[in-house]
């Protein structure tokens, strides 16, 4: 299950926001928001995707770099919601 979240997040980000990028370049710790990959609209799209795919709901205060800046953070947050 853990790998499912990470893989799904990476696949979504690669397809939507990093077209053509070598998938190996996107690691668990690549900074997404502070690294210029996700802007505010892209972050919203990612959250809508996660809510639909994993049946979880995000609180508005969770939509910041503190919670969403890396695949590892996102994985942790989504899994805590699914638990």
């Amino acid at each position, binding site marked *: 299950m853990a790998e499912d979240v990470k893989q799904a997040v990476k696949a979504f980000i690669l397809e939507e926001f990093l077209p*053509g990028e070598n998938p190996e*370049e996107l690691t668990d710790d690549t*900074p997404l928001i502070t690294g210029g990959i996700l*802007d*505010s609209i892209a972050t*919203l799209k990612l959250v809508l995707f996660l809510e639909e795919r994993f049946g979880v709901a995000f609180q508005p*205060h969770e939509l*910041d770099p503190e919670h969403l800046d890396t695949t590892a953070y996102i994985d942790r947050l989504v899994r805590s919601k699914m638990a």
Partner: protein
Amino acid sequence: MSYIPLHGYFVDAARNWPRNTAVVDPGRGSITYAELAGLTDRLRDRLAALGVRPGDRVGIYMRKSIDAVAAIYGILKCGAAYVPVDPGAPASRNAYILQNCQVKAIVMESRFQSKLLDDWDPQAPKPVILSIDEASAGAALVQALDDADSKLDAAPAIENANSAPSDLAYILYTSGSTGKPKGVMLSHENGTSYVDWCTETFQPRAEDRFSSHAPFHFDLSILDIHVALKHGAALVLIGEDVGKTPERLAPLIAEQRISIWYSAPSILALLAQYGKLSQHDYSALRLVLFAGEVFAVKHLRSLTQQLPAPRYFNLYGPTETNVCTFYEVRLPVPDDRVSPYPIGITCSHLRCRVVDADGRDVPRGAEGELCVTGPGVMQGYWGLPEQTAKAFLVDHADERWYKTGDVVTEAADANYTYLGRRDRMVKRRGYRVELGEIEAALYRSPAIKEAAVVALPDETLGVKITAFLSSREAKHPSLIELKRFCAENLPLYMIPDVFLWREALPKTSTDKTDYQRLKELA
């Protein structure tokens, strides 16, 4: 009406409505007019004691906060011009700005201090730094002033500066085509003539609650701050994180009973799409003002269908003039309308004309560049006499007309319609972006040999920015590395959407980058 300087409006309001709430920072606190007047008097005195004199510049480097509003009026009251920088931008860019206009002092949050000083040119004079802990509802500034009082001599009380109409009140830095931001110098009269036009047009009341959505380094903030605090109204600060998240912003606008909203259209479009507006009570909202870029009719229609009660105004103007034309959108927005609304008629404190490439007036209805004159027009660019001279058309009556670079037509009813730009500037989320500044940043990467950036209209993004690059090395940086490099060297809104690598960039017959060809490739 006799002239008073920009801060004089707030001074008078604090006398008339001392107990009214002046500024609210939701979740953190609020401050009354009387309290804000007292705090800004103390800051005025301390800045003067630290050596700030009328005519100096003072930087503001902190999160949008009550402390930042107090800094603005404290600086104005001691006769200096305030220079707000984007706390989210790279420290190197902010260091450039603050050195460029030779600030005498900086009021800043301590967390930014070491990075800023790392980027400070050792040859440049060091400003006095009034450092505050994390900005919070004015308390941090009070603490900093208390500390200064106990460590230094007490700051003797001085009079509020009696600034002349042409004295600088604020300098707002915008994207510069040469790769360096340029400082637009605005005088007290530039500010007050615009504020007075807002008074006449929008009839603000002491019961109003203004949104402060735009950051303070952005010219939309002039209306928010200085119009609200002239009229005894409340200014509701909206932080950057909340401000770009429709799910958080939509309930906040309702809970805070905002009555006058002003922002770039991009966040209004997001609110219309994701804000679930029907779940909240917007009965206080009476004016929705937007400016900074074209509002796609599709989203404007959706917004006005969901919120049909307020009046909607499209405001237009570059930082150099602030708002110079305005248009009230009559509801409903027709179902078959696809073209954006006009930018409207000339504001009463200004005059506009439309000229051809040789500076001659074109017949009404013909395309040409919009030029603006009047008391709202900037003094010039800081330290750039040549660029300043080029920005103005001086006519035979010796009047200075600011050339906006925007191509418009004037209809028979005196409404102007925006058609496009004459140069390489685009708007993103309301911000000005010079494509040349992005190129200059890309050239800072040692891996990049050539960089050329083009922008094309895009249905979902508004404008799509594509960077064409060639590399010195066989293996060029990955997309992730490129984006991270951009994030370290540019404000986030300037990062290109697409990066494309080429062996070499196409050239024209005169060996210049062939931008037409690149636009076809983008």
